[in-house]
């Protein structure tokens, strides 16, 4: 710590003799000191007077700076690494450097979530950006010891969910489908396995996660609330490495193979959970339960020459779950329900360095998600499947240009969507018909520009502008309805047929993104931001949290795109040489055209979903405070959030279509108070302990207003939606990490153990409260996902 401060001090006061005539070039390679892996995203900068000459290392860890010769220092900084410095004197010539950066944790220092972005010298004016690296994630105690990025981000302020079986997270009052989740640039449509219990990224391949919940750069688009950009590791071109682990739930393995040293390498990482064949031995009741999931990701990296690199990524994920805890496929006779879904994503990225300050990146990607819900016919064991799918193909190209005190990114993207809303596949069934709802087609075009500029060391800003244009395309059939009447079979006026390639409806508009940062002194800054985001693809579902088979729907003639305005402000103060940080952010978000559903809505195999849903507006606001200790043997954070989210259907709807009579009502995930604490304590070079505690107000549910005797039973009846709350949620978790228990140094095999207890004091947190009518009486129940402490032991190893 002291060393850094002194160095920084020296840098500031180094006498600089400017010889503006001579320009020197310094280029080089930045690698991890331990793994020798090239490090991308390292901020390389030198400052001359008030000008900063800076650059971020590329995917290969390379950089090149040009500046007037002179006595100066070059700094290399990256979150999670100890900063490095290199000094030049007046006579220094152009040269090539090889910089090895040491991870902070190797020095027994810890780094936690940073709210500042990784490049402090450029002083990012973005607000509400959290970067979590894999090390931080793996410290957070996880259920069953399975590392889970979705549970990790829920430790941050402003991120919540409806509960443990939630199929995604809610960020600043947004629905789960308003978050863009990117895995190496490809969208993830379902981020969880087993209905929210586990997330879908193989932990070994995960590098880091950027969460944008405030200012979202203009290069991201298509979702209205937030962006979670997950970066996978880059294959190491120098070192063979095998790593893996055994856990309570799953096994995992990762192999990194350098094919041509310095040039070509690939890795494959996989995780699988296939233990369900043991179930019947435990209890006959479990005989009918079948569950397995897994995923595999492979990545190839090829350094073509000093200027060009190519990387390719392939990701597959699969899930199968047979359960009686989810509603079965209605109107098909059978007693067992199953769900299965697959994700197949691919991407190819080409980065070309045109000049030291300019690079050109092009990405081609495809994403495919195929969920199925099915019923097994009792007598024949034939599977009746309702299959659906979504396909997205995208090409994005952008130019990145770095200048003295500013940075530009300009680009464009084309996205094609094809949605298969549902095909009922009877298999060998004699009782069920084959029914297919026609595919839906759409295009989304976008152009974007991001500019980061620092006017003075105190004042900096980001300006982003995106223009998105959306077309819903044929072949399809579009109905028109009698205005002012509920949209249903009876109010259809006429039906228009559109052929392939014809546009049925288009939408478009600008999406400005602005962030301003003012720092009166190096430890204090104020930020303000405004965002507009448009969303043309969403989930239409009538459940508390989308299920894996929930239907994705593009905007069309009747379903208008969701538009969200977000205003954010924040104050950030750090103390004690950046060891402590206090932040306070407030936001206000207004969305229009959010999707709500009519009572009794059914989207299964529905060719005209507009008959089942209504649109409305949503208002979300909140205050988030966080105190973190970022360095030392004892690190962690505590945060408190006050947040509200309300929905309201549009007033011009027919009385019978309005939800809650057109009155404002709290969203399913409205949890006013939440408090999270996460602490990591390093006991010695081998042992560390982590604790996390979460508390939040119970989410709303709809309680009946009375009961009646009807049809020989006793039924509840309801009035206002979400008129009560389930009990408050709280939980304490513990993890004990034992690093490399063997005392030998320099061994090639390193193993470590993790012992986790999730829900330490075994609170039976309610996931939902529901009512059931049973033989003439009614009863209220609460459903708990984890009603007891869950103890897990896992072993992870690296061989290299």
């Amino acid at each position: 710590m002291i060393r850094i401060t002194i160095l920084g001090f020296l840098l500031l006061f180094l006498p600089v003799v400017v010889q503006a005539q001579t320009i020197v070039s310094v280029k080089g390679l930045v690698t991890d000191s331990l793994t020798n892996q090239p490090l991308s995203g390292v901020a390389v900068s030198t400052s001359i007077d008030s000008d900063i000459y800076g650059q971020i290392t590329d995917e290969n860890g390379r950089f090149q700076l040009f500046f007037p010769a002179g006595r100066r220092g070059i700094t290399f900084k990256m979150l999670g690494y100890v900063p490095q410095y290199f000094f030049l004197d007046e006579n220094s010539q152009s040269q090539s450097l090889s910089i090895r950066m040491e991870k902070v944790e190797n020095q027994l220092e810890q780094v936690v979530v940073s709210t500042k972005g990784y490049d402090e010298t450029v002083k990012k004016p973005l607000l509400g950006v959290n970067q979590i690296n894999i090390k931080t994630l793996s410290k957070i105690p996880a259920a069953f010891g399975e590392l889970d990025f979705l549970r990790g981000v829920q430790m941050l302020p402003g991120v919540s969910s409806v509960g443990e079986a939630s199929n995604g997270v809610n960020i600043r009052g947004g629905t789960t489908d308003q978050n863009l989740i990117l895995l190496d640039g490809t969208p993830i449509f379902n981020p969880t396995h087993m209905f929210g219990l586990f997330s879908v990224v193989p932990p070994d391949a995960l590098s880091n996660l950027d969460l944008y919940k405030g200012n979202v750069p203009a290069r991201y688009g298509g979702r209205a609330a937030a962006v979670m950009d997950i970066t996978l590791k880059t294959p190491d071109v120098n070192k063979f490495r095998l790593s893996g682990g055994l856990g309570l739930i799953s096994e995992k393995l990762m192999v990194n193979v350098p094919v041509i040293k310095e040039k070509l390498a690939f890795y494959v990482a996989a995780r699988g959970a296939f233990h369900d064949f043991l179930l019947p031995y435990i209890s006959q009741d479990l005989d009918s339960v079948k569950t397995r999931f897994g995923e595999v990701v492979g990545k190839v990296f090829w350094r073509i020459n000093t200027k060009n690199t190519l990387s390719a990524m392939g990701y597959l994920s699969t899930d199968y779950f047979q359960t009686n805890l989810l509603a079965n496929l209605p109107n098909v006779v059978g007693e067992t329900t199953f769900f299965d879904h697959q994700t197949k994503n691919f991407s190819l990225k080409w980065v070309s360095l045109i000049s030291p300050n300019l690079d050109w990146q092009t990405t081609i990607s495809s994403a495919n998600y195929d969920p199925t819900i099915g019923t097994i016919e009792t007598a024949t064991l034939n599977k009746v499947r309702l299959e659906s799918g979504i396909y997205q193909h995208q090409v994005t190209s952008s130019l990145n240009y770095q200048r003295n005190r500013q940075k530009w990114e300009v680009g464009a993207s084309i996205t094609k969507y094809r949605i298969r809303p549902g095909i009922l596949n009877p298999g060998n069934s004699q009782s069920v018909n084959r029914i297919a709802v026609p595919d839906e087609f759409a295009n989304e075009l976008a152009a974007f520009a991001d500019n980061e500029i620092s006017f003075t060391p105190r004042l900096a800003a980001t300006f982003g502008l995106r223009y998105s244009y959306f077309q819903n395309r044929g072949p399809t059939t579009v109905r028109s309805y009698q205005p002012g009447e509920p949209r249903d079979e009876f109010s259809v006026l006429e039906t228009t047929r559109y052929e392939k390639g014809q546009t049925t409806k288009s939408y478009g508009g600008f999406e400005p993104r602005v962030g301003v940062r003012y720092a009166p002194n190096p430890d204090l800054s104020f930020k303000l931001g405004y965002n507009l985001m448009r969303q043309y693809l969403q989930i239409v579902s009538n459940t508390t949290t989308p299920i894996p088979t929930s239907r994705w729907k593009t905007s069309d003639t009747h379903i208008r795109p969701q538009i969200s305005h977000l205003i954010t402000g924040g104050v950030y103060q750090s103390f004690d040489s950046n060891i402590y940080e206090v932040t306070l952010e407030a936001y206000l978000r207004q969305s229009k055209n959010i999707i709500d559903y009519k009572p009794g809505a059914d989207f299964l195999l529905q060719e005209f979903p507009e008959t089942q849903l209504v649109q409305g507006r949503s208002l979300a606001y909140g205050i988030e405070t966080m105190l973190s200790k970022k360095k030392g043997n004892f690190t962690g954070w505590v945060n408190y959030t006050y947040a509200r989210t309300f929905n309201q259907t549009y007033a011009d709807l027919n009385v019978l279509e309005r939800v809650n009579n057109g009155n404002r009502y709290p969203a399913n995930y409205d949890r006013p108070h939440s408090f999270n604490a996460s602490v990591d304590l390093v006991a010695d070079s081998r042992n560390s302990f982590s604790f996390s505690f979460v508390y939040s107000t119970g989410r709303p549910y709809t309680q009946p207003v009375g009961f009646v005797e009807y049809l020989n039973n006793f039924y509840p009846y309801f009035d206002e939606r979400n008129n009560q709350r389930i009990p408050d949620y709280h939980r304490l978790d513990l993890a004990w990490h034992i690093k490399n228990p063997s005392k030998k140094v320099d061994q090639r095999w390193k193993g470590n153990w993790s012992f986790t207890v999730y829900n330490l004091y075994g609170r039976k947190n309610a996931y939902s409260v529901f009512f059931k009518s049973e033989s003439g009486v009614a009863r209220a129940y609460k459903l708990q996902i984890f009603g007891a402490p869950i103890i897990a032991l896992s072993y992870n190893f690296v061989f290299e």
Partner: protein
Amino acid sequence: MGLVLLSGILLAACVDLYKVEIETDKSYLIVEGTVNNLPDRQVVSIFRTKTDAVFKSSEFTSTIVAQKGGSEPVAEARVVVIENGQTRYDLTETEPGYYEMPASFLGRVGSTYQLSIETAAGQKYLSSIETISPVPPIARIYDRYNAKGIFDRSTSVGQIATNDFYVDFQDPADQRNFYRWTSITYEIQKICATCRGGRYYVTTNDGECRTDSDLSVNNFFDYECKSLCWDIFYGSSLDIFSDVYTNGKLQKDKLVAQIPVYQSNPALVVVRQMSLSPDAYRYYKLVQDQSVNTGSLADTPPAPIRGNISNTSDEAELVLGYFSASEVAENRYWLERRNTVNAQPNGLFASKNGRDPNFELPSSLRSVIPLADCLPSNSRTPNSPSGWRF
């Protein structure tokens, strides 16, 4: 191992009873009635819920039960069913809140029916027009013993084994069909009267219990029936189906009823397969989703359900219940109960009351113990149901 544990948690250990106390502050009209093609009693019931009712989970079993007087009969209303917009059938009030169709009435497939209510206070309610659509016959019916059974609060044990009924039926290809199944079970009842703290006496009309001061108030005497007597049980499950995915196909093994094994005696089970209109189906589907198909990981949040009856002068008034019109295909099934376990012969009384009958023995007071009348009601009859095998 992990998944084993996990699935165990997901399956079993995760649902607990939850206590609530709900006070109502609004009053609703609740109407229940179906017209059909059977030569049977056809009744429309009209009640009004109380504004200040309190529904509270009970101390030990957390059940919420109907309160006495939780809703009040709407008596002396003028209730009319209009057939095809012309023929008017006036319904007669047989007991407060219950209105019966004329005995000669038989609903006809293709005809339309509309319910009109005018309360004594002068408020007018009208149902939508319901058409009786045809229903195919039950092609096959069979029962299967289910040892696990269902939760039945009316018994002393709660959980009780059942005979599960399955049907096959051929869905007609040329039409959209919606179905509902109901069941009525006739069980032989040997005990016709119970007197608490007293004795049974035969009078000129019906028999009655007379309190005796020499008996403790906790003394129960049970009296055997004078004639054959049947208790009637109505299935409480809501079983509906739509042919949206299965139009024109033979449907097999559809579970339609679960009949509790109260005793080992044979019973007569009447399974009714009824047609529904699309709107009636939607209504029942909502009722089902909100109170039967609940407890999944992703429930549909409940909302007010609008039936098909509305106040002619106030569209916004929410009326509970649905007036429907159905064709009924009936199967009267002789349930032998040969394969049941643990059930007792003539055990109906014990199953329901949690004790064996305690008969009054001849004493100095009286040497002949009277037999009790089998009093006909909605849940008991002395007349042998059609299809009963002696």
